[in-house]
């Protein structure tokens, strides 16, 4: 039976946590695509109805701000993985 010393176990856990922080940031793809899609649709509807531009741009900005939150979740998880484990 292979036995690891405590330092080896610590090293493996630390390395795994760092790798996990890197993988967590892949989640940044999602909000980027979604926010760009929202901007495209907003541009389309502004061209169709220029009178309602204020409402359309406000709605677009609020939707993008909300869509951003998944990116911030992954950022928080990555920071927690780097600095606490």
């Amino acid at each position: 039976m292979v036995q690891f010393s405590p330092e080896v176990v610590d090293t493996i856990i630390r390395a795994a946590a760092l790798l996990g922080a890197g993988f967590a940031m892949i989640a940044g793809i999602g909000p980027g695509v979604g926010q760009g899609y929202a901007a495209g649709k907003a541009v389309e509807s502004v061209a169709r109805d220029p009178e309602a531009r204020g409402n359309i741009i406000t709605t677009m900005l609020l939707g993008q701000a909300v869509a951003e939150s998944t990116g911030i979740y992954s950022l928080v998880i990555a920071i927690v993985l780097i600095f606490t484990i």
Partner: protein
Amino acid sequence: MVEFSPEVVDSIIRIASFIAAGTALIAGVGPGIGMGYAAGKATTAVRRQPEARGVIITTMLLGQIISGSTGIYSLVIAIFLVFSV
């Protein structure tokens, strides 16, 4: 009992952090795809309604300011991983 020398411990952690930093950079693809989609929609919108050009440019500018930031989150994590670990 398996034991590592301090250099082995250091190099395992450094290798893990470099792999993780490289993986985190993948997140920069997302905003690129989204912004490209928005730009395509904007060109067709300008063709259809040339007098709404100013509103279309402002909408795209606001969309780009907001959607570019998920990429910066992943960059921040990647540089943390490279420098502070």
